[in-house]
């Protein structure tokens, strides 16, 4: 499962799954380009990385129109890219009666809009390695496949990711760009802490029980992301890989 020498962009790298992915990729010999909004936390991630050739960029992915030129700029300064892992995301609990344009935009902007613009940036001529298999990995969620009251916007944004993965995979296969997503269950991150803070102790136990292997760790998703970014998955594209500790079975 080699990523040795590959230059891989990781969004949401200042915490949680993005940070864990950056760490495991660096440990395996990749040169990681960290993207995040918080410079201090991004520096912390950078300091955790093994190996050399890593870099960091403070950037707000809500500036979607600027993403393609931002990615181009990264490739000019760091060299051509082999992979992209879009780990940045937000969660939101909102009954349909409270949904408004602002809340939809908040979630869709950093999830699907940023994903599409990151893909556009990655596809530009001169940005990615050519003649070799390259890989784009997005974060989806089991919430796109199973319903959960109050999670309509979030589920819809992840459903949009799942749809985009399939069409992008078709469009980009001739350019040897693979496109996949990871549908994660509940993973112990800051986002997860916010979700369970809204639940009673009893509900948390029930929620974890539905994950047959318990709540996941960021490293569990990071490992799956590394597989999809590596040459071990060179014949895999257009898939939504479920990594949920058995949640979908319960």
């Amino acid at each position, binding site marked *: 499962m080699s990523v040795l020498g590959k230059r891989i962009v990781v969004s949401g790298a200042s915490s949680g799954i993005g940070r864990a992915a950056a760490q495991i990729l660096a440990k395996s010999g990749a040169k990681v380009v960290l993207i995040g909004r918080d410079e201090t936390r991004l520096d912390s991630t950078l300091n955790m990385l093994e190996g050399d050739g890593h870099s960091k960029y403070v950037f707000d992915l809500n500036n979607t129109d600027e993403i393609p030129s931002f990615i181009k700029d990264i490739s000019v300064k760091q060299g051509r890219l082999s992979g992209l892992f879009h780990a940045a995301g937000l969660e939101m609990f909102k*009954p349909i009666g*409270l949904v408004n344009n602002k809340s939809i935009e908040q979630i869709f902007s950093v999830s699907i809009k940023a994903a599409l613009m990151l893909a556009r940036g990655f596809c530009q001529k001169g940005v990615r390695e050519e003649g070799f298999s390259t890989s784009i990995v997005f974060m989806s969620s089991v919430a796109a496949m199973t319903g959960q009251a*109050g999670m309509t916007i979030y589920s819809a944004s992840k459903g949009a990711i799942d749809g985009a993965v399939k069409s992008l995979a078709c469009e980009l296969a001739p350019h040897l760009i693979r496109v996949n997503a990871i549908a994660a269950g509940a993973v112990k991150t800051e986002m997860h802490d916010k979700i369970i803070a*809204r*639940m009673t102790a009893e509900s948390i136990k029930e929620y974890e029980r539905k994950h047959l292997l318990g709540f996941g760790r960021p490293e569990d998703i990071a490992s799956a992301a590394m597989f999809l970014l590596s040459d071990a998955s060179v014949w895999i594209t257009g898939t939504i890989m479920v990594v949920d500790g058995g949640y979908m079975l319960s």
Partner: protein
Amino acid sequence: MDKKAFLADMAEILEVTNAELSDALELNNDNWHSFAVVATIAAINEHFGITVPADTLIKCSNIGELINLIEANIK
């Protein structure tokens, strides 16, 4: 503290009109179910930037108590 916007959200969550939403409005088995509690926690977080534990919030018996709880957590 955006109390007016929060109360508008509470009216939506409890399925009452803004006019019906007074401090005396009872929170009971009919309207104070787990989904309403979770929605209220999310609304409190959005409007006041604080997180009130579900186990505490569920004990509120009317809107007045709910507002007092929020104010106590803000201080």
